[in-house]
């Protein structure tokens, strides 16, 4: 009986229905047995007629009987919903059907709302489909794709037979659901490409998926991809395998406003948790682990309305310097994968900042140092106050960022070092004063593609002192744009902008037209720009057109001093070299790194996150991947072979990723990255098939439940077949009526 399921949507009706096909035969036989007797005189004419017409009558009666049986059979086929069986139909023509099976292996398929994860149900459906497909050897060809890797099919255009099935079953058993997010579009397009190149076959596409709303609804690209499949005459089955989704909360974001961390210094972590279910969730809490060690106490999240989210904060202290993996864990729900989110933190023993001050007393540097590291145990920052000679004598990579205060002029090699430092991600803050050699600033620092200074320095603008000593001079106050460095000024009701007064500043010669790539972050109330930001390579440069001390403003002294401290701490965090900040990566994002050839060789080792699906520790291969970095194409004045880099998309599971690079003398240095699952897969809300199929472009797309699918079928792309059956039935009935009339089984009016 089960073999009927590949041909019929209602196979239970088939056999009883076909039994009904015997009814016309029985009626015919019974009518031959039940007759009236007539005593008749003119028998000779009747016998003559019988003798002349016997053969024709027998043929006509058999034809009539056949038509009636055929009519019953057609009705049964209609009721049972015969589906096109390309394997069967095309076998007669010596052709085959090509089924492209797309297995949704995105992260959301890890949903465990039902008794088994959706992915396991999908694999079971796939196995079932394949096993039924072997019933018609040499008539079915298959291609199996996965949603996350449509360019790497599991099977490409192979004839489905017992041997292939035996080969596939173990592979399917070992198949793991990915941790990736993926749209169905690439897989659908890949299927269309495969089928369009395969002429003379009956194409069919089966997508075994959880059919999430976010993947399928309101997605013009999905509709277009499905329409493209229809354009190659492929029927599409969307086989839904997901159960009704249960409760699911997810950690949507994990980050720290303070990206620099130091051992023993409190470090604030913030996490965004969202309730993605349709019910209110109560008393949510999370736990924190550092390097796998659970931290005391739980992070209380509280109640979350359906669809609501909550940002929670938690302070951590790293006991030892070094790299740490920090994770926030929610309690288990139907999708466990999105309950964990991690980041890596490089907690230095101390964060070092180079403060270069070329003014004799270095008073300005004192103010900056006081702001950054008045108490190193609280900020973790150690300021190194030096003159500009340090730019060539010290390895600049040691420093999170560099403050350049009161620089008159720098030697060319120092400029080169600075450029290299910034290009590699370092941050620089300029605070020039009246001893600045304007010509040098406007020429040596502003060469094309290596601009260390973003503006042409003009004259020093100074507030004139009023004649009346009791009158308040018309000081200028800063007005800042929304920017992380200046949040203390732009926060609602913040008094600090008004409390900060500037008496002197540089007016740029080209103030009215900032150069391309230069952003004005703050102006004075006079309209003159005060702070500008631009980028060079991977690094950031913030240029303050005033000094950092108190000679030109009251910035570092009360009442403006509190904001001055906060601004410098934020400035340090903002300018910090990215390699040393919080590290995280989302699965699906390419990992890209670049470094100077002088720092590391071209050999890179990736220690991939542990396989969390592995049954045993032995199976949990960390996955050591060796890569060879290649020279990065030239950029600006940098030589072509200066920089090495690599980009890889092989990071496909969450956890700790360690990137190991080697110096010339063979020492290995590691960079840690926390690999997290994509948040786009957390919303498990199912798509409404009616909404999806409402699109007028889609005619041969069907949504079926995985439980009901038991055979490879191209229907019910069977609309055409239904019409064919219906048309055949009408034709058969018309023929039957005409033949009946011809045989005069219907009494006709005889005058």
């Amino acid at each position: 009986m089960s073999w009927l399921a590949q041909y019929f949507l209602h196979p239970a009706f088939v056999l009883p229905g076909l039994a009904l096909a015997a009814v016309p035969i029985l009626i015919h036989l019974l009518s031959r047995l039940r007759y009236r007797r007539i005593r008749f005189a003119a028998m000779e004419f009747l016998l003559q007629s019988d003798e002349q017409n016997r053969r024709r009558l027998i043929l006509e009666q058999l034809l009539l009987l056949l038509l009636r049986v055929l009519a019953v059979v057609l009705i049964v086929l209609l009721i049972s919903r015969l589906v096109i069986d390309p394997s069967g139909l095309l076998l007669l023509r010596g052709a085959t059907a090509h089924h492209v099976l797309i297995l949704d292996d995105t992260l959301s398929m890890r949903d465990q709302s039902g008794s088994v994860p959706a992915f396991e149900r999908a694999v079971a459906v796939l196995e079932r489909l394949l096993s039924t497909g072997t019933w018609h050897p040499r008539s079915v060809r298959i291609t199996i794709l996965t949603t996350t890797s449509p360019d790497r099919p599991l099977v490409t255009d192979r004839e489905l037979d017992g041997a292939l099935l035996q080969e596939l079953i173990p592979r399917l058993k070992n198949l793991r659901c990915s941790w990736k997010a993926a749209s169905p579009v690439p897989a659908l397009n890949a299927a269309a490409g495969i089928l369009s190149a395969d002429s003379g076959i009956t194409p069919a596409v089966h997508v075994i998926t959880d059919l999430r709303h976010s993947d399928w609804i309101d997605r013009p690209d999905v509709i277009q991809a499905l329409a493209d499949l229809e354009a190659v005459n492929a029927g599409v089955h969307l086989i839904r395998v997901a159960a009704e989704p249960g409760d699911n909360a997810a950690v949507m974001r994990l980050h720290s406003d303070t990206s620099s961390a130091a051992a023993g210094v409190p470090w604030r972590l913030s996490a965004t948790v969202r309730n993605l279910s349709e019910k209110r969730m109560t008393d949510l809490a999370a736990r924190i682990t550092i390097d796998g060690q659970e931290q005391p106490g739980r992070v209380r999240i509280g109640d979350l309305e359906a669809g609501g989210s909550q940002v929670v904060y938690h302070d951590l202290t790293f006991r030892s310097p070094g790299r740490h993996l920090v994770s926030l864990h929610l309690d288990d729900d139907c999708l466990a994968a999105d309950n964990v989110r991690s980041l890596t933190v490089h907690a230095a023993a101390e964060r070092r900042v180079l403060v270069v001050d070329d003014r004799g007393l270095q008073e300005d540097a004192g103010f900056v140092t006081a702001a950054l590291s008045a108490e190193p145990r609280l900020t973790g920052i150690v300021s190194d106050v030096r003159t500009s000679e340090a730019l060539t004598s010290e390895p600049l990579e040691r420093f999170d960022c560099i403050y350049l205060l009161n620089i008159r002029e720098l030697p060319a090699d120092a400029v080169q070092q600075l450029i290299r430092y910034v290009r590699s991600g370092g941050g620089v803050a300029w605070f020039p004063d009246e001893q600045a050699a304007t010509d040098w600033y406007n020429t040596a620092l502003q060469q094309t593609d290596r601009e260390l200074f973003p503006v042409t320095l003009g004259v020093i603008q100074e507030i004139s002192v009023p004649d009346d000593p009791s009158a308040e001079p018309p000081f200028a106050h800063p007005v800042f744009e929304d920017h992380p460095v200046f949040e203390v000024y732009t926060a609602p009701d913040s008094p600090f902008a008004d409390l900060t007064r500037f008496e002197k500043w540089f007016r740029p010669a080209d103030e009215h037209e900032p150069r391309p790539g230069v952003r004005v972050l703050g102006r004075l109330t006079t309209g003159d720009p005060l702070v500008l930001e631009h980028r060079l390579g991977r690094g950031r440069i913030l240029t303050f057109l005033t000094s950092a001390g108190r000679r030109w403003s009251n910035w570092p002294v009360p009442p403006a001093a509190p904001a001055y401290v906060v601004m410098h701490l934020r400035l340090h965090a903002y300018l910090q070299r990215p390699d040393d900040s919080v590290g995280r990566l989302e699965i699906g994002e390419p990992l890209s790194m670049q470094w100077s050839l002088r720092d590391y060789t071209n050999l890179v080792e990736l220690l991939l996150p542990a396989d969390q699906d592995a049954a045993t520790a032995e199976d949990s291969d960390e996955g050591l991947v060796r890569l060879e970095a290649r020279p990065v194409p030239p950029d600006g004045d940098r030589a072509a072979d200066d920089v090495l880099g690599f980009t890889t998309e092989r990071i496909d599971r969450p956890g700790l990723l360690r990137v190991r690079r080697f110096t010339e003398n063979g020492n290995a240095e590691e960079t840690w990255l926390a690999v997290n699952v994509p948040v786009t897969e957390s919303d498990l809300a199912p798509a409404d098939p009616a909404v999806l199929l409402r699109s007028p472009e889609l005619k041969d797309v069907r949504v079926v439940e995985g439980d009901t699918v038991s055979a490879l079928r191209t229907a019910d792309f069977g609309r055409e077949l239904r019409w064919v059956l219906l048309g055949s039935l009408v034709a058969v009935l018309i023929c039957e009526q005409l033949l009946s009339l011809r045989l005069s089984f219907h009494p006709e009016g005889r005058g």
Partner: protein
Amino acid sequence: MTRDLERYLRPEEIAKISRLELRARHVVEGFVAGLHRSPYFGQSTEFVQHREYVAGDDTRRIDWKLWSRSDRYYIKQYEEDTNVRVVLLVDGSESMDFGTGPLTKFDYARTVAAALSLLALRQNDSVGAGLFDTGIRTLVPGSSRRNHLQTIIANLSADRTSGRTDITAVLRRAAEMMHHRSIVVLISDFLCDRQALFRGLQLLRQRKHEVLLVHILDDQELDFDYSGTLRFEGLEQTGRLTCDPAALRSGYLDALHRYLETIRRRCAAAVIDYELVRTSDHLDAALSRFLRFRLGMRGR
């Protein structure tokens, strides 16, 4: 009056009258009354009766004396001389027992024979009648006496149908028995051997007899309007067949019409009058045919 009589001429009405004589009289009286003019009462010296004048009558035959007494127009009717011998041969074989209407073919044939006998006796013709199947079963010798009708009717009523038709023997026997030139009226369904039939008819014609064939067939034999699965069992052991008659109707009718056409053509060739009569037809068809034939005889 005429309408009433026509109503009584319908076979189903006639069937209600059990006695053959009554049926025959009804047929003849009705037939005669329906005629506008009496074509067969000739002039003679022997007065028979008066009859009210009807349009078309010869005005010379109006009895003016009677008109003067009654102020109504009557014409005189006279008895003609008997100079024709009529022999009615009715098929009494088993096939004549078939009928789907109120009358079987045999009933119809006997009624026709009785009516013709009455009609002929009224013409003072000598009428003889007999039943035949494999041979002539009974034969009433010819006579022109008025009460001879009862003898004929008694003879026709007495026998039921039986046996097969051996038309050759019948006609040969009839030819042997008739020594004078006669009108032989053969009333049958003629479901018999065609060659034998025509051989017999040819024999009669050779003996200078005038022959009139009254071919009686039932409606269903002529139309074959059966439906459903039927088992036909032939009368006179002509076989049996289970079939769907509708499917065979066309072939049946073709064969029947070929057969009728053959009879008609052969009769025309042999100068034999032929009349096909349905059992549902009014009997005046047969009677008028006989009268035309009879008038034709007078002219010969």
